[in-house]
């Protein structure tokens, strides 16, 4: 085996027009439905916009996490497909746009913003953290840091396409070492602000880790769909094989199991200790018919992926991997629905779980936006990091 046999033959090809058409169609349809949903039921749409924002924010930042962990761990299997990770992480550039609807409707969705909060002793105690100016400052800092790191990582990576300079890899390794702790803290803060504080009396130390793992699985799912579709249609040159798909499936499987582990830690410990400060959060997701949703979440997000992804023959099968990726994207949306919407039911005084136009609109916007963004990103960039020193090693990767 000489390295010559794995030399990549890569020629840049433009994506077919139907990708852009589909993406724009989904996005515009989603936006129209979103406006309609807002007219019909403004409160529901306001809550759903939290789902939309946290969904995209989590995917964008964990895609960037995948980029940085490759540099830091010296992994090679993901190098040939790293451009796809980078393109997925460009979502972070647009996060301020998606945060806007939430910021504009904060007073309606966050209990700690409501007039009632002024008379609630616990919320008075929490006011030094949970207040609007500090919330906005945190949001601006978090998004600012993410965008900064996105720009730095991708600038170096793209420059390498031309210069083939190895010191750019060394620079990105240093950047990754700084980025990972910063990301850990910032994604925790974001999840506390947007999701945990929806029920401001409740608290859980594992919450940030749980949100991170859920987002990571969803980001990997989007990446997997993109990689498989691009590669099977010849857009990634030659050399990426099913062993690479296997590794993506392996990461998705591990992510799913770890998500379940953190969810179980939280649920089981709160159930067992049975303390009045903590149990209401789960009671809101169990009573009034919500138990059906809770149990379904367990099946959708854990039991099905566990059996589907543990098998090697599924992880190396492109069609099945695409199916499981779609499944897990749905699972993550479902998880966010499970976190956010019981609060909506409570505020809107609706009995039991319900679904409206708003949820459909959000799903269409999220998927349409990612497709459009991806298509735009591929226009003038190589889909493979052709100048990366680890590229040949990555192509030679076999199980």
């Amino acid at each position, binding site marked *: *085996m*000489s*390295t010559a046999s794995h030399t990549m033959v890569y020629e840049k090809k433009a994506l077919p027009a139907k990708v852009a058409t589909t993406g724009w169609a989904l996005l515009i349809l989603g936006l129209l439905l979103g406006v309609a949903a807002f007219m019909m039921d403004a409160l529901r749409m306001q809550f759903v916009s939290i789902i939309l924002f946290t969904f995209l924010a989590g995917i964008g930042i964990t895609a960037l996490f995948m980029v940085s962990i490759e540099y830091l761990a*010296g992994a*090679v299997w993901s190098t040939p497909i790293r451009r796809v990770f980078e393109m997925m992480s460009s979502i972070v550039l647009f996060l301020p746009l998606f945060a806007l609807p939430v910021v504009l409707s904060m007073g309606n969705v966050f209990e700690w913003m409501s007039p009632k909060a002024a008379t609630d002793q*616990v*919320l*008075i*105690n*929490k006011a030094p*953290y949970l207040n609007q100016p500090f919330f906005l400052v945190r949001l601006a800092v978090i998004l600012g840091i993410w965008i900064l790191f996105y720009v730095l990582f991708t600038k170096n990576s793209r420059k390498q396409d031309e210069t083939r300079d*190895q*010191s750019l*890899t*060394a620079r990105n390794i240093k950047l990754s*070492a700084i980025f990972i*702790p910063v990301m*850990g*803290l910032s994604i*925790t803060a974001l999840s*506390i602000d947007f999701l945990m504080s929806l029920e401001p009396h409740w*608290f*859980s*130390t*594992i*919450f*940030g*880790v749980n949100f991170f793992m859920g987002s990571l699985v969803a980001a990997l799912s989007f990446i997997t769909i993109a990689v498989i579709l691009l590669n099977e249609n010849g857009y990634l040159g030659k050399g990426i094989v099913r062993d690479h798909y296997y590794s993506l499936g392996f990461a998705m499987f591990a992510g799913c199991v770890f998500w379940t*582990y*953190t969810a179980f*830690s*939280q649920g089981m*410990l*709160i159930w*067992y*200790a*049975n*303390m009045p*400060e903590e149990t209401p959060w789960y009671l809101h997701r169990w009573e009034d018919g919500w138990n059906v949703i809770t149990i379904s979440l367990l099946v959708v997000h854990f039991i099905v992926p566990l059996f589907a992804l543990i098998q090697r023959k599924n992880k190396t099968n492109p069609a099945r991997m695409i199916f499981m990726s779609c499944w897990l994207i749905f699972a993550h949306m479902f998880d966010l629905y499970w976190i956010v919407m019981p609060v909506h039911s409570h505020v809107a005084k609706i009995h039991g779980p319900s679904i409206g136009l708003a949820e459909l609109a959000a799903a269409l916007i999220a998927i349409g936006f990612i497709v459009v963004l991806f298509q735009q990103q591929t226009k003038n960039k190589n889909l493979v990091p052709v100048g990366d*020193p*680890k590229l*040949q*090693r990555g192509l030679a990767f076999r*199980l």
Partner: protein
Amino acid sequence: MQVANRPSSQADGTPDFSVEPSVVLKNPSFHDITEVISKPIESKATLKWYIALAFSMMLLTLELVCWGLSFYYGDGLWGNNIPVAWAFPIVNFVFWIGIGHAGTLISAILFLFRQKWRNGIARFAEGMTIFAVMTAGLFPLFHTGRQWLPLYLVPYPNKHAVWVNFLSPLVWDVFAVSTYFTVSLFFWYTGLIPDFATLRDRTLGKDLVSRIRKTVYSVLSLGWRFSNRHWRHYERVYLILAGVSTPLVLSVHTIVSFDFAVSGLLGWHTTIFPPYFVAGAIFSGFAMVVTVLVFIRYIFDMQHIITVDILEKMNKIILLTGTLVGYAYGMEFFIAWYSGNAVEQFVFINRAFGPYAWAYWIMISCNVISPQMFWFRKLRRSVPVMFVTSIFVNIGMWFERYVITVTSLARDYLPSSWGWYNPTLVDFGLLLGSFGMFFTLTLLFVKFMPVVSIAEVKGVMDNARPSHHGGDH
């Protein structure tokens, strides 16, 4: 043919990322590897080994004396009291169980992640796991107070219909730890089979000692003949055992954390405990592996097998897990403040500034601050620095369990029932003695078994690569 190791740096000294770095240095032949690893087993024990063994057996004797006293007079010899009913025994138990986590992480999880560097250290780390779990297991057994009735820990149908309390995490511990021990032992032994066969084939003498050795190694190697079919079965079993062990790495310390976290006690009940305990366990386990490997690679001339690169990678994991533990400390504090709950807040202020503040700050400086040195490549690769840091980490992780156990129990909801804990001499004897047991077992292991996996190291050498002779294979 001697071929120079592939260069992994460019002409100007900066790393060359396009070349996979060699795992084993100096480019030895397969035979050299067998020789180096078999040497400590086949040659006479050195004076240094005897001195080390004598010292650790002294400590072991201390442990035996203390266990004997505890057995004869009862647990009243210990400092445990009400409210601090869980003290040194549980602290030591969790500490040693934690040490035992590195082995399976290295051998199973890093195997599934296809990390080749693990092959040089997996065997030793697995052995250490077994000894650490054995050392740990004695503490809860004695803490039950009736060491002669361990059968009551096991649920079995009987005519009195007396069952264990299945709702108690202490019973889950019995299952978790014994499963972990069993699977780790099998995993370790499976890996040892080809090496036992190598040792069997190398034992040629006709004297009595050699014949005994040959018989023992023959029995242990289960008729291994290095045939292709044997290897195929072996690889399959090894993969399956790695898959089975992986959830166990998480489950054992998760359940140990449940011992604390399911209760309503302040400072024990927090949802981050399971992953935080697992991260801490890996942290302390890796530190212990580094502490001991630093000596082993030097004494047995294995610097080219257990390379500085490998130690550097371990130090990176120590930095990572140390920082994760720091994240957990931070989250506990933040959420206590965020909760707006005066009692939650008191616990953490009490930990950091109360009567046990000294223990808390030892924990913080050893666990969170000391590993931060490993941000720097020079320090990460310096053997003295990593040795000292790994000792600090071990001290810090012991104190972590002390802080969690003692500070929370000593001051709970009712100030009228607050208390204080003073360990007795027997407590200290057991703590010190447990190191004797651990190191005695470790020393016997390095003398009578291959401390590095002969077969596995050969698999990751440059010679084993199909491209080694320029694509001829």
